Each structure stands twice: as structure tokens, then as C-alpha cells.
């Protein structure tokens, strides 16, 4: 326990020192504030509260941004230490391999939690200051956004760590991390859309679509945020989809947790076999 705390604390401190935490927090806050003020104009008649508008905008943004931030945080964790020659000394200490992986994971999650809560929280506070205290449903949607953002980040931190223990060079790890981001955040959705159009409803059942969406953590995150609450659903145009595809919240959370746990376990197993 002490070792996990020390390793995680080191990651968080490094993140604070090299301004990662600051940069990510500012970026998220700036985008969240911009969306909160600019994006609230065209709400019209759909019956969504200002905070729900922010949730929809931020969720769409998070799908692209958080996986990228998480991968950038984590891809270097092991392979970078190995290249700088600091890994040998770390492993020669009283640590076990899984503690190194888990400690770094926890530290990087802490960075994401700080950045997300502060960054997105700023927007929530700003909206509340302007439009009054949000109702319970909107607040719930916002809390879900922050929670699921951290979960989404966790899944991609775990994937980044897996990359970091699998490859031998930083460059390779950076390339692989970027590749993962492209696949999960961009290409997968395009491919799925193409498939839906080409199929024209002949083979694609709602069940299959649901499964395909749950395969990708980024899509699971989207479903979780955009279909979970009525106001948000109406606003995001996901109402039609939500009628057909509606995995329960526990299922979606479990999917995100599995996307975190499996790569993390994989990274631990690979790292345990590695001979520095």
C-alpha cells in the first residue's frame, strides 16, 4: 500500500512539476467555458437546461480529447523510464512489477481526476452562476459526465500502459498510442457508420448495434452520457437511437471498467515477464 502511494504520488508530482496537470486543466476549463457560453445560444425549444447543453457539448468533446490526453500521459510511463535508464534502479527497489504498473496507473488517474473535476467543474460553476442552480437531473447528468470522463480516461491510461510495456522504444509507443486513439476515437465510428449505411437495415439488428457500440469504450462513454438522461437525449439527437439501443447504466459502467481492468492486467502480466 505504501509503495502504491509513493509511486502514484511520484506520478502526480511529476505531472504537477512538468505542468501537465496545469495544461490539461486549463485546456479542459477553457473548452468547457467556451462551450458553456457560446454553445448555450441555440437551445431553442427542445426543453433542455443550460447545464444539459454543456453536458452534450462536453461529452462530444471528451470522446476525442480525453482518450488522447490519457494516452499521452501513459504511453511513456514504462518505456520512457527504460530508455532513460531509471527503470532498473526502480525495479531493484522493494517493489513488485504489478505495483509499478498499478502505482503509475493510479497516479495518472489522479492527474485526470484533478484536471477533469477542476476543468469541467469551472464550466458547471459558471453556468450555475449565470442561469441559477440546475435541477437535480441536470446535476446528475453533469456528475455522470465527470465520473464517466474519468472512467474513459482510465480505460485509455490502461491501454497506454499496455503499449508502454509491450514496446521497446518510445517512438514506437508514441506511434502505437496515436494509432489506438485514431482507431477508437475516429475510425471505429466512421466504419460503423459506413456499415450501417451500406447494410441499410438488412442484417443490423439493434442488439448487434448495441454490441458493436459497447465494444468501443469511447462509444460506450457516448451512450452513457447522451442516452442516460431524458433532457440530454432530446438535445443530442440520440433519442431515436436510445429507443433501440439502451444498455443499462450498470452495463455501460461495467464495460468501461472492463476496458480499464483488462489492459491493466495485461500490462501487469507482460511486465512481470520482462527482463530488464
Amino acid at each position, binding site marked *: 500500500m505504501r509503495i502504491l502511494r509513493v509511486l502514484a504520488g511520484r506520478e502526480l508530482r511529476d505531472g504537477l512539476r512538468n505542468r501537465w496537470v496545469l495544461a490539461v486543466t486549463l485546456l479542459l476549463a477553457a473548452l468547457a467555458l467556451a462551450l458553456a457560453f457560446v454553445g448555450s445560444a441555440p437551445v431553442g425549444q427542445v426543453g433542455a437546461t443550460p447545464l444539459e447543453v454543456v453536458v452534450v457539448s462536453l461529452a462530444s468533446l471528451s470522446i476525442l480529447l480525453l482518450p488522447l490526453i490519457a494516452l499521452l500521459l501513459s504511453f511513456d510511463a514504462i518505456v520512457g523510464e527504460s530508455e532513460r535508464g531509471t527503470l532498473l534502479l526502480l*525495479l531493484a527497489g522493494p517493489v513488485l512489477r504489478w505495483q509499478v504498473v498499478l502505482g503509475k496507473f493510479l497516479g495518472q488517474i489522479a492527474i485526470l481526476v484533478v484536471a477533469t473535476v477542476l476543468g469541467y467543474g469551472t464550466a458547471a460553476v459558471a453556468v450555475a452562476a449565470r442561469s441559477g442552480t440546475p435541477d437535480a437531473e441536470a446535476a446528475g447528468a453533469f456528475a455522470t459526465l465527470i465520473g464517466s470522463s474519468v472512467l474513459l480516461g482510465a480505460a485509455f491510461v490502461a491501454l497506454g500502459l499496455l503499449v508502454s510495456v509491450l514496446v521497446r522504444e518510445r517512438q514506437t509507443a508514441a506511434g502505437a498510442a496515436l494509432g489506438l486513439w485514431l482507431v477508437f476515437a475516429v475510425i471505429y465510428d466512421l466504419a460503423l457508420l459506413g456499415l450501417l449505411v451500406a447494410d441499410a437495415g438488412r442484417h443490423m439488428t439493434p442488439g448487434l448495434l448495441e454490441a458493436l457500440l459497447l465494444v468501443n469504450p469511447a462509444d460506450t462513454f457516448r451512450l452513457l452520457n447522451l442516452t442516460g438522461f431524458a433532457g440530454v437525449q432530446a438535445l443530442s439527437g440520440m433519442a431515436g437511437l436510445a429507443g433501440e439501443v439502451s444498455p443499462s447504466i450498470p452495463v455501460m459502467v461495467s464495460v468501461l471498467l472492463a476496458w480499464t481492468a483488462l489492459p491493466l492486467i495485461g500490462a501487469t502480466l507482460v511486465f512481470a515477464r520482462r527482463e530488464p
Partner: protein
Amino acid sequence: MAHPVELQGAAKRYGALTALEASSLSLVAGEVLALVGHNGAGKTTLMKLILGLIRPSAGTVRVFGADPAGREGGAIRKRIGFLPESVGFAGAMTGAEVLRFFLALRGEPAVSAGPLLERVGLAHAAGRRVSTYSKGMRQRLGLAQALIGRPAVLLLDEPTTGLDPTLRQTFYDIVADLRGEGCAVLLSSHALAELEHRADRVAILERGRLVAHGRLAELRRAAGLPVRIRVTLPNAAAPIAGLRGLGAEPVGAGMMELRVTNGAKIEMLGRLAGLRPMIEDIEVLPPSLDEVYARLRNGGGEVEP
């Protein structure tokens, strides 16, 4: 009593490459064992085996009676201090921060950082970023890190390579202190000559093979190199026929040299004493450690302690 570190027939192969052939060695409490060999001879491999960072392909490695690559690894490594050959630290941290991190990792109080830095002569640079440190300063910091928590086993991989003589002396002084406290020290070097009076035992590795292992005196005997006896003649006189008869060769003006086996040394000295009026001085030169090393590396002698 079992020794803190025991290797029995431990070998390490990477595919077709043999990093270490079956080797049996022990580290004894209160003793310094020097591991001598060229780069790639298997010195670092041996240390990694003791640390449990790699697993032996054959044989066993026992540290404090347990497998260092097993579940006990963390607890075992807590009692081992290690200084790697090229020690790397996160450059953005200060020396004191680096040390506090390793202290925390080992569950030692952060206040120990001061005395440790003092001990390795780095107190003045404690607040400077490690990226500004010289090679010698990084090495000092590495040593400070290895001394955390009074280790029972200390592994130093080429600790003095590239260090100036003063710093080298500091290193050996600290090693001597630890040895006095009962620490089992393993230090590697590629120069045997440096280890005279500093190592209790020496193990010579050549391309992954343990070619010799024993006390320095034993290694000297095992090498079977001749002792040189240098005779100085008075007044730079011409070489003497009587000495020539014993097999002496002139070496420079007024000096002759004999080479005899260690066993024949005393007898030869007796015969030389008989020639006393013609001789001014006699010097006995044992084979240098560099010569012993070169001979043993080439398979000169097998010694088991």
C-alpha cells in the same frame, strides 16, 4: 549459518547467447567479493539474478534463503542496496528529492536524506537538479541511494569506473565501513589491480564463465606465474658470470633479473645470498595482479575456495 546470497549452478541464457554459465558463488556477511571481468563477461547478469530482476535458466539463486524473483522479492530487495553501472535519475528532480523518493519507497523516514547525502559528500548539492550533476555526483547520489536502510547485501556494479582517485578512495572507504558492519558486498570491476587490499575474495568472469574464484593469494598461486628476482650490482658493474649460470638476464645497467616459480623462490634467494659480495641489493617482485588476471582469464587455473 547460511550465507546471505547463495548461487548454485545458476546460469542465464538468452536464446543462443549464454550470459552466465552455471556458477556457484556465495556472498558472505562482512566480506567483500570482487567480480572481475570485461564488459559482457556476465557481471551485471549475476547482479540481476541476485536482485531477482531476471530468473536463472538453470540452477538456483537464494537470497536470505528465498527466491528473489518470487513473491518475497520485494521484501528481499528491501535489504539489498544496488548501484547500477550507469545510474540514471529523473533529471528534473533535485538530489534530495530523488533520495527522498527512494527513502519513501523503502519505508524509511525522509529525514535520513540529509545524513546520507552528507556521507557521500553531496550535501552542498542537495538542492540542485540532478540534470546539472556531473558523472561523479550522480555516482555519489547512486551510492547514497544504495546505502538506504543499512542494507545487509550491497551490490555495486562498476562503482568506480570513470571516477577520479579521491572519489574512488571515498567509495572504498564507505565500502570498508559497511563491510565492518557485517554487510556482504559484491562489487564488480574490470581492473583486478584496483582491488588489492579491498576485496576479501575475487571471482573472475570470462564470457559468462567463472574461471577463477578465491582469495587473492590463492589466485596468485593458481596463476602459476614466475616470481621475478631483481639483483642490483654495485657500481653498475658488468653482468656476472655466476648469476648468468643461475639463469639471470641483464636488464639495464647494473641490474639482472631471474624468473623462478614461487616454490623455488626461497632456494634461489639462498643461492643468491652466497654471491653476496658481488651483489648490492635483491628485490622480489611477485607477479602483478594485471598479469595474474590476464593469465587466469585465459584459463590459467581453476581455484575453488
